[in-house]
């Protein structure tokens, strides 16, 4: 037997802001660049495949499909153009440079390594190692009941950082309850440490498959 029941979404006053977001990334520009370049590669492959099929099925003339892929006029053109191979070499060099830029871009991120705490021309500067702050936040959150792992990071600009926190839960404590505790304790302590009471934060709660199950 199978029974199905629908339950409408719990009704609550709709707060401002989006109900769902894309997963967080430390390299939004790289994600966008990858998407654009791969779409262009796909477009080029599609166009090349479609053009070759059009040639094969006689869309460029019935006799064209029986011609070799590189036929005489092409060979004559290459032989008559002394600049042709130089242009090919330049194109190859440009391709290599573009691909190298694309490869190096994959390692980019907006991670913040240090936070300026004090700037004084006479007394000098005081910077806080971001790892010290994120390590303390991770240790505090991992000490909460219901948390198996916490990973923190600072991103954005050192003058306007964003604290990112990924918290893996074990299911013993509700996500809503842990959210409140993280904001009221760990985040409040982090804000106090850096002297920024308005330090923005993005917290991702993760409940993996498996792990602890309720004992009945």
């Amino acid at each position, binding site marked *: 037997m199978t029974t199905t029941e629908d339950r409408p979404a719990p009704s609550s006053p709709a707060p401002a802001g989006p109900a769902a977001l894309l997963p967080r990334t430390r390299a939004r520009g790289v994600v966008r660049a990858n*998407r654009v370049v791969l779409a262009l590669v796909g477009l080029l492959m599609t166009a090349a495949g479609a053009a070759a099929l059009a040639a094969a099925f006689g869309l460029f003339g019935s006799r064209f*499909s029986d011609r070799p892929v590189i036929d005489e006029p092409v060979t004559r053109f290459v032989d008559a153009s002394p600049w042709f191979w130089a242009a090919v070499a330049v194109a190859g060099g440009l391709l290599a440079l573009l691909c190298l830029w694309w490869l190096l871009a994959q390692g980019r991120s907006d991670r913040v390594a240090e936070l300026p705490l004090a700037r004084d021309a006479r007394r000098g500067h005081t910077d806080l190692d971001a790892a010290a702050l994120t390590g303390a936040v991770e240790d505090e959150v991992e000490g909460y009941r219901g948390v198996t792992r916490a990973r923190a990071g600072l991103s954005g600009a050192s003058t306007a950082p964003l604290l990112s926190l990924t918290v893996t839960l074990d299911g013993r404590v509700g996500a809503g309850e842990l959210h409140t505790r993280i904001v009221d304790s760990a985040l409040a302590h982090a804000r106090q440490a850096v002297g920024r009471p308005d330090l923005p934060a993005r917290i991702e709660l993760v409940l993996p498959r498996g792990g602890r199950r309720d004992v009945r």
Partner: protein
Amino acid sequence: MRTFDRVLAVLLAVAGSLFGVLVVVEVVVAALERPAVVLPHGPVAGWLRENPWSAGIVIAIAVGLLVLGLALLLAELKRRRRTELVLVSSDPAVTTTLSTRSLARVLERAATATPGVERAEARARARRARLSVHVPVRDPAEVARIGREAQDNATAALESLHLRAAPRLRVRTRQEAR
């Protein structure tokens, strides 16, 4: 998709860089009237001079290019699904999210905590969540009662998350008589 894009980007960037450098090397080597270093451009050009556009192998390559290119293009143009559900926060500077996968785990755990439920499977999206509850009991009335209890538990778990917009929950109870 981002991970797939990143891996594909690295592979294509490495391949493109190597190919570009090799093209420059081969052009220079050919200008010096020396044999090819790596790229077999002579045999490839010869093969292209021998085969017409209508040759089976040329058509097969064209179809392969078209299919792969279309798949890549559509995958990149497809709108990315928003999978991180936002929790209500009293602090406007804090955004807390729970992935739809994690929400499915929350619903499964709430349902399996119900006495009489053997197992539960859930799938969640931003607007809709489906929970399938398996009850190994013969009595249909008892199955319906356990199903309702599992649904109440799942709904309570969903409400306790305080999502900005909770998805509509659909629960299916399956009788699995032993």
